[in-house]
């Protein structure tokens, strides 16, 4: 189980990106985190594995408090937290299999990974995950030869290769067509159910979220403004989350919301392990 307690994040010289956020995620529960661009969704999930350092608050994964860990202990905990990205974040010039195996890097020594000598059980598992996402026959292809949907499946297999206790998923379908988006969401949901994995999925598409998640949390300006079942998500709640003007408009305007510039996190990432 994951538990966030009074989590806040303030970037330098700006308003609170997360304001006193608390909620629990029980095993196997898939949460859809919705909210307008800039609401703090990406910040929130990156605070959990500390790709971004939270300013205040505590995060418990099972019984481990994540915000206080030293770098080497943090690295061990990060292995338990799988992450899936909007732009897949694969290493394009490596093979599909190497990308999946890169999920196990936290479990092998530098020299093992350097000489690509992954222990047999890890290899077997990696093949198993590739099979699970339906890409076994593409194992030796280079990642840049895959379609968007296939790349995202590799991303999912890589996260599974970590043997995670939690999945953090940032806009998994924002770069995919509607049909592929549904397939990916269905796959994520099935996998979470099979493994009793909790997951937090940042997602723009409200209908997609409603269809595939167990619970929805609405974030607005860093605060939780809704927390409930997908069926409770009615027009007035959506207005609270997205604001009246933005909500009651045509799809063209909705697009504007989704392409609003999102600041570049990675530039700020320190590489301390």
């Amino acid at each position, binding site marked *: 189980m994951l538990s966030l307690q009074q989590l806040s994040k303030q970037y330098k010289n700006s308003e609170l990106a997360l304001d006193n956020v608390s909620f629990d995620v029980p095993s196997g529960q898939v949460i859809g985190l919705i909210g307008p661009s800039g609401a703090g969704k990406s910040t929130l999930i990156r605070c959990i594995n500390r790709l971004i350092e939270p300013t205040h608050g505590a995060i418990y994964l099972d019984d481990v408090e994540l915000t206080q860990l030293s770098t080497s202990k943090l690295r061990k905990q990060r292995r338990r937290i799988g992450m899936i990205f909007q732009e897949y974040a694969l290493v394009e010039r490596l093979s599909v299999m190497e990308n999946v195996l*890169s999920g196990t890097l936290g479990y092998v020594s530098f020299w093992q990974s350097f000489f690509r000598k992954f222990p047999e059980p890890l290899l077997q598992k990696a093949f198993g995950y590739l099979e699970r996402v339906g890409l076994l026959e593409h194992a030796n292809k280079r990642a840049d030869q895959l379609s968007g949907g296939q790349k995202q499946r590799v991303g999912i297999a890589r996260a599974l290769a*970590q043997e995670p206790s939690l999945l953090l998923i940032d806009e998994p379908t924002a770069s995919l067509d509607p049909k592929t988006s549904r397939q990916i969401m269905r796959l994520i949901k099935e996998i979470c159910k099979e493994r009793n994995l909790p997951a937090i999925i940042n997602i723009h598409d409200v209908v997609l979220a409603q269809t595939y998640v167990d619970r929805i949390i609405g974030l607005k300006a860093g605060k939780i403004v809704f927390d409930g079942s997908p069926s409770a998500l009615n027009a007035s709640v959506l207005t609270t989350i997205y604001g009246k003007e933005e909500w009651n408009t045509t799809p063209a305007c909705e697009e504007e919301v989704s392409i609003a510039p999102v600041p570049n996190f990675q530039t700020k990432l320190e590489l301390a392990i």
Partner: protein
Amino acid sequence: MVSSPMWRWTLLVLFLLYLGVAFSSIDLNFPRMLDGLTRGWRFVDGFLNPNFTSRWSDIQTGIIESLTMSVTATLVGILFSIPIGMGAASNISTKPFYFLCRFFITISRSMQEIIVAIFLVALFGFGAFAGFLTLTFATIGFLGKLLAEEIENIDKAPLEALKATGASWLQMIHYSIVPQITPRVVGLWLYRFDINFRESAVIGIVGAGGIGATLNTAIERYEYDSAGAILLMIIFIVFLCEYTSGYVRKWLI
């Protein structure tokens, strides 16, 4: 550019005056020029009739020394440029280390090879060792800077993804940065090799050994036909490097 016509004219006159003074200060000596012209012609004639045979063993020694110098300087340079280039890449380095590496790169790149060679020849005596050190020093700065730039320009998403898996710093570098930069960086290494070979001919003239020293001797002895042969050999080897590096790069992509 200059709006007032009076100013424009004054400037033009001043400029012409300056030109006049400048030219008159050049000490033209026509008999000396004629003399030079005939010598220049002998030079050209020497190149048109290169003589590989009379100094062949010197040429051979020079070429081998230059090749050894370039190969070792390139290899050692690559070896040192890797940590320095990584340190000088702002996205994976830490502040103090970053400034240290950038400082070294700037020093290395601001010093012309010939000047470094003169200094090192004074320090270590004539010969290929001074040449090797000169080229190594230049190579580290050159490759370090370009490596740092390649690293700074990578797609950061896979780096973040690997950090999130709990990979160590070295593993992140090896799995997400190395594959992204390898083709271009290996291309740069090969390119530097042929710069080093060409450079070895130049610094040889100031005493740093190699084919440059052979070339210098040939010119001093007025053996322009042998000098011509040496230049042709240099061109031939650079051409060979060019061709191979192009081939290797294509194979890497």
